């Protein structure tokens, strides 16, 4: 296999590994731009992945599974909102609680329903999202240079991959070009001003966490019904936190967050392929280093060495209406 082919395959894998990160990072962005810290992405993703796989198994349709995932994550988002927005509880603690709760609950319910040690039964073809082949992908395959890009890289992914990439400009448009987006960003920066303008801060923040729930639900469903074929215990394996890191790395903005997700996805894809590979002059690549790189980069960014990441001003603070 020549180098060009290898690069195409690596980029192809990057698209697949970054999809759940993109959806979850956008989810985090909606929540955090409105002022609610969302550390619960990991747990919500896990909950979404479980619901999608379990429902898709019973119903036999990935679409119903997707809806179930989104319903689950909206429910969890509302729980998070109930604790943080209504009861002004600590947002970090609530997020950690949901992560721990879902880690246990998905396994517990999985064992109770399927008795397979926390897994869900393997899904057949009809109950998973299948790759979509673009028209003419086979015909163009042999065209030099552009052929592989079209038929390998762009074609042949499942619908959620394309949804994730369309979601980025869509999120940008909502966030920066609609009244809803303006208000959403405003409650995250200066809720007092929004309140003065006669817009309910609490209602706005709830709407924002619901948006967050819809997006993170899709990312969960992707893991268990598109990329994988069943739910596995703790299958998110820190992806929720990587998405969070990508969101911070992207400075709470859609396109930079996309870039961060692609970078982290690429590192993930590369780490899998570098396992045990001996590079000339370097020796065996320490895979763990590549795996830790997203976290290291995020810390360096947060330390202010690569530009400045400034969070929304009212992030983490519940709004107390003056009496």
């Amino acid at each position, binding site marked *: 296999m020549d180098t060009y082919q290898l690069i195409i395959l690596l980029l192809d894998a990057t698209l697949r590994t970054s999809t759940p990160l993109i959806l979850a990072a956008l989810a985090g962005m909606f929540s955090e731009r409105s002022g609610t810290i969302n550390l619960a992405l990991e747990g919500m993703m896990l909950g979404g992945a479980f619901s999608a796989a379990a429902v898709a198994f019973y119903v036999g349709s990935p679409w119903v599974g997707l809806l179930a995932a989104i319903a689950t994550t909206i429910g969890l988002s509302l729980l998070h909102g109930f604790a943080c927005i209504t009861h002004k509880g600590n947002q970090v603690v*609530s997020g950690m*609680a949901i992560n721990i709760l879902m880690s*246990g609950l998905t396994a517990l319910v999985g064992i109770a329903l399927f008795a397979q040690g926390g897994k869900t039964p393997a899904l057949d073809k009809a109950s998973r999202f299948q790759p979509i082949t673009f028209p003419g992908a086979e015909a163009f395959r042999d065209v030099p240079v552009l052929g592989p890009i079209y038929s390998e890289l762009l074609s042949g992914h499942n619908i959620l991959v394309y949804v994730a990439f369309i979601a980025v400009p869509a999120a940008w448009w909502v966030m920066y070009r609609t009244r809803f987006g303006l208000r959403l960003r405003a409650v995250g920066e200066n809720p007092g001003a929004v309140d003065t303008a006669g817009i309910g801060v609490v209602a706005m923040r709830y709407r924002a966490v619901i948006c967050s729930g819809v997006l993170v639900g899709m990312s969960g469903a992707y893991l268990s019904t598109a990329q994988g074929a069943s739910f596995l215990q703790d299958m998110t394996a820190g992806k929720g936190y990587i998405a969070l890191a990508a969101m*911070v790395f992207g400075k709470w903005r859609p396109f930079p967050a996309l870039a961060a997700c692609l970078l982290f996805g690429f590192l993930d894809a590369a780490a899998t392929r570098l396992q045990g590979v001996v590079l000339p002059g370097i020796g065996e690549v320490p895979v763990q280093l590549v795996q830790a790189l997203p976290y*290291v980069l995020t*810390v360096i960014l*947060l330390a202010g060495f690569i530009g400045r990441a400034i969070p929304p001003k009212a992030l983490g603070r519940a709004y107390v209406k003056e009496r």
Partner: protein
Amino acid sequence: MSKTVELPRWIDVGVLPFLNLLLALIVSGLLVVAIGENPVEVVEILLYGAFGYEEAWGYTLYYTTNFIFTGLAFAVAFHCGLFNIGAEGQAYVGGLGVTLAALYLDFLPFPIMLVVSMLAAMIFGAAWSYIPAYLQARRGSHVVITTIMFNFIASSLMVYLLVNVLRPEGSMTPESEQIAEHLRLPFIHDIAGALGIEMASSPLNLSFVYAIVISVMVWLFIWHTRWGYAIRTVGANAVAATYAGLEPGRFIIIAMMISGALSSFMALNEVMGVQHRLLIDFTAGYGFVGIAVALMGRNHPFGIFLAALLFGMLYQGGAELSFEIPTISNDMVVVIQGLVILFTGAMEHMFRPRVTKIYTAWRLRQDAGEAA
């Protein structure tokens, strides 16, 4: 009349946490019913598994030891207004310090090793928490995110070290060599045996005594020393602290390093006391349980002890439970843990308005009765 009376301390630190805990347990009970098991039976097995026989006590207190350390770690940082989510990583790196000391300084006699291993754990744990602390104090990066990142970095680093450096030659399992027998922390049943008291064997070891002593020291430190006062002041109001002549950044770093050192004591229990070598992921989520323990214990060492005992009971009883009722796995304990954090931590204010109302009404009626 919308006058409200301030809640007395016994309601604030007693009744409210109890109500929250009760709610968490009721929801857990409903889950058990939903799975199709009998919650009363579950509670019976849980209690028997945790306290029903001598060995069970040993296991319960062994888990309690870990939770006391990680709970204290979270609490000290919390008094400074910081969320140290990184106990997991700090304890993991602390374990590296302990293991290195025990493997490479194995010529030391046992009493010196007691001190050296403790110092090694503290230095490694504190060093690992220093970086996020420094970044928070001097560069304003949020400690929650950085400590989460540092957990993952620690995990990758340790896998690398265990696979490539610490693994003995010829071994396939990624774990360090065994620690020499004479350096290990003695088990409580061995100590008791030497004193002529017969005890069932369990992993409970000397580090439980450390946990008690350190709890008292943390209490003294937080409430009866200058630094403890400064840490609480910075935590309560960093701006006021600055006006009082305290430099918040300095105490943020101090509190975080103490927090990291406290979490790393968990490694003494696990590495020196029980496993006798460094294992992959030996921290097993104990660091995260520390958050629940500290929140439930209202960040006070005595409360932390009680909460740690509760979680020790859940862990040991939960293990028994998964033997007896196969549909209920250890994950039930994780669920309860999540619910406890949710209700006693995130939703701690849920009952406050209602309780305040009831208490106010009661007080006013009493006052009126006295006046008449």
